[in-house]
């Protein structure tokens, strides 16, 4: 076997023959996460695509213990599990919330914020397919500007809620963004977080073929383009120390980023956009990068 298996375990924790759509970005990300964490992982899954992908009773597609829980409750249920596990003396357990953007950014935000503020020793991963995909592609607080969804049929008029940045105000030891086109980045970040005590937050871009309207073979290509256009920024913040990771490290200059239209044109949910919309979206991306620049500057100053 090649060297790849020295870093990436061969074992699968998501069993094939599951209910995921072909080309599902979320399942791909969870596959990497579980390889990084290993079998002593308890997943807490609220209502979301994955709670259906898990498969119907009496069968489940996951090789780790799972607590299914109500939509708004995942971070709170996980808080209970973490404290219980430590109190009753179970050692070496990863407690992981695996929630969609709806269950994180909207209905689950209160419980997430509370759990982060209490700094429980757990991992929270939001796989963001940018809408309520499980119930049929309705918009969520994480739907980007201009995107078609069934409840924004002429394009979303609001700007995407930037949840990792909200988490930065919570004083937690680790925050990172993830992207399925960069599995080594995912693996090393999750492995690093495993060793940190406290609340760890991950926000992963999860391309969705039926929801974003593209051929299922393009999931990884679209995810990669999200990073190369600067639409999705790979970063991590470790104990307040903020840094870009992966290809995002080299994209501070606008000319190095591909024009946003390279990302938008691959997806049917942006097909209806006119030039004005595309300009607006380009500006939103560029403005976000200005914020990142300021963040990196103040990070440097604080270090001095």
């Amino acid at each position, binding site marked *: 076997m*090649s060297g*790849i298996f020295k870093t*990436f375990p061969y074992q699968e924790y998501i069993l094939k023959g599951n209910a*995921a759509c072909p080309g599902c970005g979320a399942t791909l990300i969870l596959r990497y996460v579980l390889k990084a964490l290993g079998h002593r992982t308890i997943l807490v899954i609220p209502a979301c695509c994955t709670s259906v992908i898990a498969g119907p009773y009496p069968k489940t597609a996951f090789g780790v213990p799972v607590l299914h829980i109500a939509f708004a409750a995942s971070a709170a249920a996980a808080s209970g599990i973490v404290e219980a596990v430590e109190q009753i003396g179970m050692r070496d357990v990863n407690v992981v919330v695996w929630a969609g953007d709806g269950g994180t950014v909207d209905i689950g935000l209160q419980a997430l914020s509370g759990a982060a503020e209490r700094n429980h020793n757990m991992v929270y991963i939001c796989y963001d397919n940018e809408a309520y995909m499980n119930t049929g592609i309705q918009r969520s607080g994480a739907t980007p500007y201009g995107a078609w969804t069934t409840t924004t049929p002429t394009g979303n008029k609001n700007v995407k809620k930037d949840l990792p940045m909200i988490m930065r105000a919570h004083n937690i030891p680790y925050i990172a963004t993830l992207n399925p086109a960069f599995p080594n980045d995912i693996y090393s970040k999750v492995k690093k977080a495993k060793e940190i005590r406290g609340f760890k937050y991950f926000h992963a871009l999860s391309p969705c073929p039926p929801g974003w309207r593209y051929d299922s073979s393009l999931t*990884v290509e679209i995810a990669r383009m999200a990073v190369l256009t600067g639409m999705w920024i790979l970063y991590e913040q470790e104990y307040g120390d903020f840094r870009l990771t992966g290809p995002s490290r080299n994209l501070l200059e606008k000319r190095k980023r591909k024009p946003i239209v390279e990302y938008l044109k691959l997806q049917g949910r942006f097909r209806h956009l006119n030039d004005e919309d595309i300009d607006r979206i380009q500006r939103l991306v560029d403005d976000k990068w200005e914020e990142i620049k300021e963040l990196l500057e103040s990070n440097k100053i604080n270090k001095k």
Partner: protein
Amino acid sequence: MGEIMVRVYAPIARPTIGSVGKTGIWRSVKPVVNYDKCINCYLCWMYCPEGCINIIDDMVRIDYDYCKGCGICSNVCPVKAIEMVREE
């Protein structure tokens, strides 16, 4: 004392391959590997969301019982060794 006095029938599910059946029947196109071109980089294995690409004797082998035909493996192969072929 302190034991469960009643037999509890709780909604407990156990890990099963093929939890919704042989998902290979979902396909309309299937990936075919050209072993002359394949360089054993295993990127297809890496990016398969289903985990249904096995490595047997160092060679990639697609599990056609479960492959849903998404086409990601073909898309990411750096040497274009995987072709998506229409199912009969």
